[in-house]
């Protein structure tokens, strides 16, 4: 049946119009060069900050013995979390038969690839001896959750890259004849990467099978990356980390930040790439519903994570929770819970809010809150260890992130933007053939 659709004249006509809409954004225009120039220069400045850290040691950060994991680790958790959305959109929703996710599937995979790739680098910036990174592979011990994390993040990155690339092969073949006036290298790249695709029925059959297998494989991998990341904390006996629900707590939180990131990207492409017919208001409406669902789920885990120990107030838990509820971190804690979760859920219940612009604003606030939440998960539990903190200089007791640390963290965001820009500007950001096929099927059904 698919075969007949993909070779019909009706399909080819549809393909022509969609390809024209999508491919008009592909290529190096002035805006792209200016934007990339800005990103690269800013990134270079932040990398300079990192070279200072390399030379002088981690002492240039605000980290010391009491709070020895700070912004870098929080940022790492945030990146791993956000990358999880690739699995949620394409796999969970896609395999469940939600047809509307087709046009945003590739955007979700771009987010997944960019955040997963940079997460790996972020963790290196936290190492005291980055030159010894190969030791992890040479002397690696399977007992250590770090080994598990390295393995699953790498696997997830590769699977996400394949999920982005494989369904794009027919698109590249469609595009290679339609890329007039584009740089030589781009046309050449399309020719090589489309692997002489001839749009044969069997090719599509094999491709669909391969993608289906990948979609299934990536689900346990995605659950694994964030569960293992949560175990880096939950495997220690510290109050605030010593929790049995850390795995699902992290995974559900990941869906929130990832969905918010995809909505932001969708808005950007819709406006800047003029894709209003592909990333429709209906998509924002539906993504709003998804965001409500995952936020309520996350809220439920938050309730368990804080209310259960908060009711008992065991000595160590009490010190940590009082710090969050009424102490030095109270403003941040309640701000993140209210503005980043409770109020947005309430607002999104209204259909009028689930429109592109309000959704963009809500998503931006939720994404920032998600980052701050990771900071609250990582930093405060270290401030109050079991034994009293005494006989230290004040800098060793109170954690204050430094400028260098902030710049190195900014570098990771800039790198994500660079990757997203390259992937979305040099390659079609909406799956051409999949969307065409879906639309034909829909039209035929209506007839």
């Amino acid at each position, binding site marked *: 049946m698919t075969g007949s659709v993909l070779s019909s004249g009706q399909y080819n006509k549809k393909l022509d119009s969609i390809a024209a809409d999508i491919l008009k954004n592909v290529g190096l225009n002035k805006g792209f060069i200016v934007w990339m120039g800005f990103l690269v220069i800013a990134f270079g400045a932040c990398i300079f900050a990192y070279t200072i850290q390399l030379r002088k040691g981690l002492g240039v950060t605000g980290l010391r013995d009491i709070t*020895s994991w700070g912004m870098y680790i929080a940022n790492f958790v945030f990146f791993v979390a956000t990358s999880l959305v690739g699995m949620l959109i394409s796999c969970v929703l896609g395999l469940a038969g939600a047809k509307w996710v087709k046009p945003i599937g590739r955007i979700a995979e771009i987010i997944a690839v960019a955040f997963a790739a940079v997460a790996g680098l972020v963790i290196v910036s936290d190492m005291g001896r980055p030159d010894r990174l190969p*030791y992890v592979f040479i002397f690696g011990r399977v007992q250590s959750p770090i080994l598990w994390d390295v393995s699953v993040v790498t696997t997830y990155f590769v699977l996400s890259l394949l999920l982005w690339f494989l369904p794009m092969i027919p698109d590249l073949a469609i595009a290679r004849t339609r890329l007039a006036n584009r740089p030589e290298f781009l046309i050449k790249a399309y020719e090589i990467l489309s692997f002489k695709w001839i749009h044969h029925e069997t090719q599509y059959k094999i491709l669909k099978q391969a993608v289906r297998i990948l979609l299934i494989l990536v689900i346990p991998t995605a659950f694994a990356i964030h569960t293992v990341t949560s175990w880096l904390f939950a495997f*220690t006996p510290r109050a605030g980390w010593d929790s049995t629900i850390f795995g699902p707590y992290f995974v559900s939180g990941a869906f929130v930040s990832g969905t918010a990131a995809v909505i932001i990207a969708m808005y950007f492409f819709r406006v800047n790439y003029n894709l209003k017919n592909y990333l429709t208001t209906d998509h924002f409406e539906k993504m709003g519903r998804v965001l409500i669902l995952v936020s309520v789920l996350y809220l439920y885990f938050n309730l368990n994570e804080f209310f259960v120990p908060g009711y008992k107030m065991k000595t160590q838990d009490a010190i940590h929770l009082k710090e969050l509820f009424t102490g030095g971190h109270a403003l941040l804690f309640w701000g993140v819970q209210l503005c980043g979760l409770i109020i947005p859920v309430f607002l999104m219940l209204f259909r009028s809010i689930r429109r592109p612009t309000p959704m963009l604003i809500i998503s931006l606030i939720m994404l920032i809150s998600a980052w701050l939440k990771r900071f609250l998960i990582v930093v405060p539990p270290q401030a109050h260890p079991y034994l*009293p903190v005494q006989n230290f200089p004040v800098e060793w007791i109170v954690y204050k992130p430094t400028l260098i640390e902030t710049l190195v963290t900014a570098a990771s965001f800039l790198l994500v933007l660079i990757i997203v820009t390259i992937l979305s500007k040099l390659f079609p950001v909406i799956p051409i053939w999949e969307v065409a096929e879906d639309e034909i099927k829909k039209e035929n059904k209506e007839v």
Partner: protein
Amino acid sequence: MPLKKKSSEKTKIDEILESSRRDFLKKVGIVGAASVAGGAAIYAGYRFEKSKNNADTIKVLTEDNRLVEIPKDQVKDFKPDLKALQTRGREGIQGRKWIWVIDLSKCRNARKCVEACQEAHHLRPYEYHINTLVMKESVNTPAYFMPKPCQHCDNPPCVSVCPVDATFKRQDGVVLIDNERCIGCRFCMAACPYSARTFHWHEPLVVEGDKDQEYNVELNLPQKKGTITKCLMSSDRLRENKLPYCVSACPNGVYYFGDENENAVTNGTTKETVNLKELLEKNGGYRLMAELGTKPRVYYLPPKNRLFDFKQGPETEYKEIT
């Protein structure tokens, strides 16, 4: 060149040249034979001398407790290289199970243990392998001082989480850190409930002689930037059958140290050796946060019948030195 001319007419000059060559060869032969004979004589003499030296042997006790005899001239001073230091440092001392008892009723916060340790391991005043803390469990219980070294747990959370086997547990019970291996991820610090570890955020304190020193994992010197350092139970001293630096430095008899296998611990101040089990039993010995299941090798005796009144001196202000 004369040979070439042989084919042509033989001249008188050729004849003269020929005879002088023969003469020369003869002389060379004599000198050669003489030098061979001379060399042989010298070699024979050398062999003789050598065999005479062999008679001078020396009795040596090997590492595995065997008494052996070796020629005196073959005795060399032993200076372990990095590989040897690492091998023995990771193996530990066979047959030992080091154990530590800290008597809180005797501690008056002299901090001599802290100073001795920092001097031995080239640490700054606020970088601790051992730290003395003021403890106060509740409003109604009195405050007391508590020296806190690494607890050298038998179920060490730090060792479990280390991704590269940089921190490890030895057969004699000591938990060490190998700063040649450490990647600086600080997972061990996050996992340790006793806050026993410190990290070199800056270039470590440099003491003269540090540079030329071969890295000794039992002393963790020279210290390295970007790696962890921690209490080593003074493994280098234990290898020499001496008590740890802090234990010997205490002026108040707080520390007992010994071998669990021998059931005996020695007080670092009085040098009195006592029965370990009796000491723990009679004084109600306990371990820090035993409920965490870390199984520390450090025991505490409660601060009862205190020898000194609790007197907290003026608070020292610590300033970061970079």
